């Protein structure tokens, strides 16, 4: 069956859990920014956790179903409507052929995930259905969905409707949002006062925040340890000889506005990085709206690994309820 796109929303893309293995050639992992939300949505409708769904940022799409299906919407808080009647989020919902799924205004968070029983059946590209628009790779024709597209859906045994994920297992950004950071990489390039300032200062998500990276504003500019720039690095003190960028790494071009690279990251470049957001908090970034007050919280590796186990525990609780 297919799902007809009546209105694509702002930028809605097909995403799964991404295509690891090609970052050394500049092709990023991609996939859902909020991976737990996509996994949960898939499990609710009876799909594999890694099936392809839709990720919509800020504005939901309007979709017409040509056949009966079970769907679930997770992630950001945005009223869900089937033929205009409001339905619950984080819940398996039955939708009939001919019915229309649409959304109200975004209330909290930034990205919703729509899973459809059977999963979106666009062709695999390098092992994944995720959309990488810069490379015109994967997803629906290598781009965000557009009006009149007909998205192919696979088949799966219907899961029961009505199953739901309890509130306590849904994650929402705190106010201010807190992102835990392991200092490192080129941390030694900034003076101690700036290292402290980075964690002390209040930051805000800038309007330039997308799947490639999230920019932040509001903190004091960083001061660099003086040195003669190494050969090949470039003249600005924030420059390095072009190197690989980890997912979650925080670069600060010119020392002014930190940028956290996300799932569609550029794989490398010539800006120093002062550390990396830990894996446990990557999903959270995908739910931050522009202007969200944010603090960076310093952690060590042991704390990073403990936080990772906590998040895995939450995911396991969701599996225990649904599988």
């Amino acid at each position, binding site marked *: 069956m297919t799902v007809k796109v009546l209105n694509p929303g702002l930028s809605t893309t097909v995403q799964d859990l991404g295509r690891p293995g090609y970052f050394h*050639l500049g092709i990023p992992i991609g996939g859902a920014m909020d991976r737990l939300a996509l996994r949960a949505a898939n499990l609710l409708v009876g799909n594999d956790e890694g099936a392809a769904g839709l990720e919509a940022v800020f504005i939901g799409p309007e979709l017409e179903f040509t056949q009966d299906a079970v769907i679930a919407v997770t992630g950001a808080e945005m009223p869900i409507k089937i033929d205009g009647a409001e339905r619950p989020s984080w819940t398996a919902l039955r939708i009939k052929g001919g019915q229309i799924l649409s959304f109200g205004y975004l209330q909290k968070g930034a990205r919703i995930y729509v899973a459809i029983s059977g999963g979106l059946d666009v062709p695999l590209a390098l092992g994944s259905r995720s959309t990488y628009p810069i490379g015109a790779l994967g997803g629906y024709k290598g781009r965000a969905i557009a009006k009149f597209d007909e998205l192919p859906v696979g088949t799966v045994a219907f899961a029961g409707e009505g199953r739901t994920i309890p509130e306590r297992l849904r994650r929402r950004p705190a106010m201010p949002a807190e992102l835990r950071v392991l200092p490192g990489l080129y941390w030694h390039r900034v003076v101690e006062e700036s290292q402290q300032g980075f964690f002390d200062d209040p930051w805000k998500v800038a309007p330039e925040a997308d799947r490639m990276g999230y920019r932040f504003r509001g903190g004091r500019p960083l001061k660099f340890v003086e040195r003669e720039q190494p050969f090949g690095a470039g003249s600005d003190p924030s420059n390095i000889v072009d190197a*690989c960028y980890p997912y979650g790494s925080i670069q600060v071009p010119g020392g002014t506005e930190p940028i956290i690279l996300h799932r569609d990251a550029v794989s490398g470049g010539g800006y120093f990085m002062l550390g990396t957001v830990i894996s446990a908090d990557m999903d959270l970034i995908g739910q931050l709206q522009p202007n969200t007050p944010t603090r960076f919280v310093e952690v060590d590796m042991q704390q990073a690994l403990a936080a990772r186990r906590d998040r895995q525990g939450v995911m396991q609780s969701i599996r225990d309820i649904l599988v």
Partner: protein
Amino acid sequence: MSNRYSFGGDEHLFVECDESMSLEAFFKSLSMTSAVRESRIAGVTEICPANASFQIKFDPDVIKPDDLLRELTAIEGAAEKTEPVIKTRIIEIPVFYQDPWTYETLMRFRERHQDPKATDLEYAAQVNGLSGVDAFIAAHSGAPWFVSMVGFVAGLPFLYQMVDRPRQLQVPKYLRPRTDTPKLTIGHGGCFSCIYSVRGAGGYQMFGITPMPIFDPEQKISYLRDFMVFFRPGDIVKFKPIGRDDYDRAVEDVVAGTFAPTIRGVTFDLREFQKDVDGCNARLEGALDDR
């Protein structure tokens, strides 16, 4: 010089072979990444070589970060003893320098450039103390380049010229990055040249354009059918200046599916290069003449 290790969060280990760019640092990165690949450490999920550094992505549920660090430092000792010799390939890349498309683009973004009255090539010639654009093109296409990293975006090669440091061409990036760069532009920033694999933003100076596609997500180009990305770190590139007629003919060949890049297998020995740069390069370029 020993490596500097630093964790990028709980899933990446960053390894800096040297702060400065040099062929020696690149070779150390290349030999270490091959050694890591061969050692098949459980939990290592990706190995990304860069110019003078590299990055390991790992799964901390499989290998503890400290254990990975121990494995890597052990490999470093062994890698230092490996011979700096690689079997690789040399590829001739035709370049239409001073083409109309990059010219149109550079004029559009002139207010973001250090010298709004000059073209990127005129500026590059001037800051490198060369007599003019022709001399700069002669230097740019006169000696081969190593692909020292592939990335930024899909399939984009960073290129480091195989000449001693005094002859390295260095040009600052644009003051503010452009929002547009034609696909297949030959760019240059710092000591690195690159080929923009896709159209998009960029901060490197623009010198020309190649008709040869290097990234094809649809895998329709004959030499990209096996894999959509052309370049690998360690490839050697020789630029060949061409004019408008040759460029147009090559584009027609690409469309017709008959364009075949000149590629030859070669062996590169860093010690031979260090002893006689020009002699080593002449031998490598000679391979391109074998028909």
